[in-house]
């Protein structure tokens, strides 16, 4: 199907297939009051999704169940339930190999169980969109937010974006399909948000009109045959090179991996105009910066307000895309900073490591504060961390009840 010639026509629900640029940037927006989970549903209602595969046990987000309603209403062409998360991601691969626009949701331990599939998706150039509503991954289990699982996704060959707000989330779910499906990109995309904080709280989100939807996916623009019919019935896997042990077989596999990384790099050209740059920054001429992603950015904003009340000027960098990584953007935005604080909702501090590996004089990076396992990160904790690091004596927030 030629996705360009279909613009202006209607789908079976009466929605008009709309040029993505018009839909995202010119069409009227309707303010609505929704939870993050409901926002996922509303985005998918407008996304011309062919197949959603769900493992609806996850308590992290109601999205899988809500999209089941969309299927019942006729907005999603097909809806399947996997017997576990590994099965879900495998079924997603089958649907995408067959030329369908595929969507799924996951979180926490389920993401980890399905992990083998993600490099397979990218290696097979399957532009599947996966929502990750981050939660704890370790035992004892938690349904509360924790962004450690994002770290595991960073080298799978997927595009990885990290939304701060429900508005980001809504826009990026729709935009993600368009970037991921570009023929020079054509990779799976993980659109992450901090579970609970985004999924279970209500916010005003400006929605695109419900009678407009994305043009359908065109599998004939794929950089690989969408389904290989050489070996009946079909071959789902690309040929492995280990069947012959020599330099060129291994070099081919290495070149294949390089091509996936190259495709991530190519996505910059499409991502930057779509989501308004890989980062957003404020007051980067300040000596102190807060750099982070997700809701840690929101808490950083509040901390900056509190610090301003105390006469301390602090800038902010919001990292929106983790893959592609905004290497040059972060180097530029942090060039004046003497102290770079990286608050994170995980114990590992992976964002701080990424930034340290990016900028000169990396001892400017002060990892933290860190919270995990569903803890909140009050802005006062960020303020305390910054002041303590600058040598000021401050009382800890944790002692307020004593």
């Amino acid at each position: 199907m030629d996705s360009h010639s279909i613009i202006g026509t209607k789908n079976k629900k009466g929605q008009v297939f709309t040029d993505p640029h018009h839909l995202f940037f010119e069409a009227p927006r309707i303010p609505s009051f929704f939870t993050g989970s409901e926002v996922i549903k509303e985005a998918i209602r407008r996304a011309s999704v062919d197949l959603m595969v769900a493992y609806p046990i996850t308590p992290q987000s109601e999205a899988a169940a809500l999209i089941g309603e969309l299927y019942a209403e006729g907005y999603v062409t097909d809806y399947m339930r996997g017997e576990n998360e590994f099965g879900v991601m495998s079924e997603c691969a089958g649907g995408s190999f067959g030329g369908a626009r595929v969507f799924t949701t996951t979180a926490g331990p389920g993401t980890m169980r399905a992990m083998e599939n993600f490099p397979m998706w990218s290696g097979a150039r399957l532009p599947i969109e996966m929502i990750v509503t981050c939660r704890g991954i370790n035992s004892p289990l938690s349904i509360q937010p924790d962004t450690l699982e994002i770290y595991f996704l960073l080298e799978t060959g997927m595009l990885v974006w990290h939304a701060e707000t429900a508005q980001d989330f809504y826009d990026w779910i729709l935009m993600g399909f368009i970037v991921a499906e570009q023929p020079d990109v054509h990779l799976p995309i993980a659109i992450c948000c901090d579970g609970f904080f985004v999924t279970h709280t209500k916010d005003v989100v400006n929605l695109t009109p419900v009678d407009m939807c994305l043009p359908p996916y065109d599998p004939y623009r794929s950089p690989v045959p969408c389904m290989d019919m050489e070996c009946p019935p079909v071959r789902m896997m690309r040929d492995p090179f280990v069947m012959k042990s020599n330099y060129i077989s291994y070099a081919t596999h290495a070149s294949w991996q390089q091509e996936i990384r190259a495709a991530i790099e190519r996505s910059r050209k499409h991502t930057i105009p779509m989501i308004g740059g890989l980062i957003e920054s404020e007051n980067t001429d300040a000596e102190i910066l807060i750099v982070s992603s997700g809701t840690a950015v929101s808490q950083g904003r509040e901390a900056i307000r509190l610090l301003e009340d105390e006469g301390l000027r602090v800038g902010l960098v919001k990292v929106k895309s983790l893959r592609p990584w905004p290497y040059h953007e972060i180097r530029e935005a942090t060039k004046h900073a003497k102290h770079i604080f990286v608050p994170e909702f995980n114990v590992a501090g992976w964002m701080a490591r990424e930034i340290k590996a990016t900028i000169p004089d990396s001892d400017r990076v002060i990892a933290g504060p860190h919270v995990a396992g569903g803890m909140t990160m009050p802005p006062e904790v960020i303020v305390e961390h910054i002041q303590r690091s600058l040598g000021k004596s401050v009382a800890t927030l944790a002692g307020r009840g004593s």
Partner: protein
Amino acid sequence: MSQYSVRPGPEAFLPPAAASMGNVLPDPGQAHINGRIVPEEEAFAHGARVFLSAKVPTIFPGPLVLWAWNEKAKRKATAIKHLYDTMKECAPKGATPMLIPMPDYRPKYPKINPEVEINPNHPNLTIWHNKIDACIFVGVHCHQANLSLKIIRGGTNCYTMAMCAQAGHEDACLSFRDLTVEKIMHFAEWVKKLKGSVEFNSIAQYTNGART
């Protein structure tokens, strides 16, 4: 702006993907030569000169144009045959233009017959066997074309070009994008136009450029 110049090799044990070195694909109406973005017309002229200067200029048509899976593919195949005939007609004495298909992408064991085909997983075998010093990919799926182009750059001294129906290929020494039947015919016109004006076996001028 990228400083990485995409030139014929042999480049390295495992050369980098040009996109990872900062090279970007051309926009519509543009092409690239060695990673430098140029107007499309400049690339047509340059590509024709490369072909006319080569001893074994070769077209590698892929499955998207080898199989008659739609009317557009059939018309492109006819245009490619016309380009090949034009190359034979215009090639200087001593040159041997070739047309070698890439019919599919399966790794072939124990090895391919380089006389009759090229395979994206070990394209160097066909390049070496036939002493191909300039080639053009057309109708190859983008992922497989990038694999081939990079492996050729890594291990051979062949000047690679790509006619891509999508966004183009950074891993070729020269790449067009948004391929149409008309663009293939236009390239053939450039070959005809420059017939006799290019020194035979002078391809070294395009292959030995210093990396910047």
